[in-house]
């Protein structure tokens, strides 16, 4: 009872928390800006696949909990699911990712090291990264969800802020520890900038400074069993983000498939809410001084 009371109190505590979101519009590409230490970002996103003829429409929602452990280390937990038209809805697994900034200061090119463990199944469709060869979309969820994959994914993230533009390049290597697939490769490139660079004095929702827009390009590069563009999916995706309030933002992307192995269109929506000083508040609430 005491615990429930504390949890309710904590929910009230975070509901009144106020902080900036400053969300990047990217869905797939990572830049070098990490979560601020002690802040928690809760995000919910959905990938909607518009299929080719003969394939089924699917919806893949996922939830992200991103926490700034230190100024140079951000950790993130994902929970994901998938629903296919005329089939079923299934839980497709979880991911735990960590991003580290080895360099202390801002440089012309800022490297970030990314390491992720994925405990997912083959029904996963969130497509947070595209690696290896294009996945098949033919089998039913009942079969796909029985095939589990323990995957280790690494990325080298290089990102630069040039005036008001952010340019980011991600090089991806993924290994499925549950199957003999070799190492799979992929890439993601992104560019974005805010629509307004000077902050107005007024608290406005629709000011240009609250919007940022850009473009992503991402796809698979085969694997050690066959490197290259053959039988791979590639997308080009305009992206836009709107900071609705000091602590919430919306993102949207409409990716267009560039190869026959890609979905013709991937629509992505995201909403995120940031809680500043989450770690300190949690520590205070559960007894000890931060």
């Amino acid at each position, binding site marked *: 009872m005491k615990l429930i009371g504390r949890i309710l109190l904590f929910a009230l505590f975070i509901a009144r928390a106020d*902080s900036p979101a400053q969300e990047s519009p990217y869905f797939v590409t990572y830049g070098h800006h990490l979560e601020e230490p002690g802040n928690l970002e809760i995000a919910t996103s959905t990938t909607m696949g518009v299929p080719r003829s003969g394939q089924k429409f699917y919806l893949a929602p996922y939830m992200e909990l991103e926490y700034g452990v*230190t*100024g140079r280390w951000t950790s993130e937990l994902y929970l994901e699911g998938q629903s296919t038209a005329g089939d079923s809805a299934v839980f497709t697994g979880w991911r735990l990712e960590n991003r580290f*900034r080895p360099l*202390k200061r801002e440089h012309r090119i800022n490297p970030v090291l990314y390491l992720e463990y994925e405990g997912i199944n083959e029904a996963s469709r969130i497509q947070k990264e595209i690696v290896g060869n294009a996945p098949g979309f033919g089998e039913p969820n009942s079969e796909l969800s029985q095939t589990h994959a323990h995957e280790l994914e690494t990325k080298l993230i290089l990102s630069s*802020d040039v005036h008001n533009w952010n340019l980011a390049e991600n090089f991806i290597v993924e290994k499925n520890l549950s199957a003999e697939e070799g190492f799979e490769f992929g890439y993601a490139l992104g560019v974005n900038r805010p629509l307004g660079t*000077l902050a107005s004095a*007024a608290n406005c929702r629709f000011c240009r400074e609250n919007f940022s827009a850009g473009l992503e390009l991402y796809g698979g590069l085969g694997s050690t069993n066959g490197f290259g563009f053959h039988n791979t999916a590639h997308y080009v995706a305009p992206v836009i983000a709107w900071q609705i309030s000091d602590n919430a933002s919306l993102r949207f992307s409409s990716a267009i498939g560039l190869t026959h192995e890609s979905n013709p269109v991937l629509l992505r929506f995201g909403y995120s809410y940031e809680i500043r*000083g989450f770690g300190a508040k949690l520590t205070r609430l559960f007894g000890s001084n931060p």
Partner: protein
Amino acid sequence: MTHGTRLSVTCVFVSLGAMLGQNTAYQPDPGWRAPAAAAFKPNPLAKRPEAAAGGKKLFLRNCTECHGNDGSGIMKKHAADLQLPVVQEQSDGALFWKITNGNPDRGMPSFSKLPELQRWQLVLFLRSLH
């Protein structure tokens, strides 16, 4: 005012500051210094004082969690008291560099994700704090 009186007054102010959570005892990190080239950069908004109002909005959004609404620094967070001469005497370029790079090992995050002009707006607003 005698030496003893001055000491007492100082002690009272320091205690009052501590009670209010202000970081009057702030000591800057000696290793956190802007390179000379960055420190000499002039503020491109220096002739637009009206831009400080936008800087105030950014400050309230991004900085008050640690520095407090008046910039005096929250002691628990070990955040700088931005009103102190040791901060205010730094050049615009040096403050801009510090906002851009942060000092992650001492808890100050980098704000390079803000557009360049908005970081200069923050510098402009910081000047109004002393």
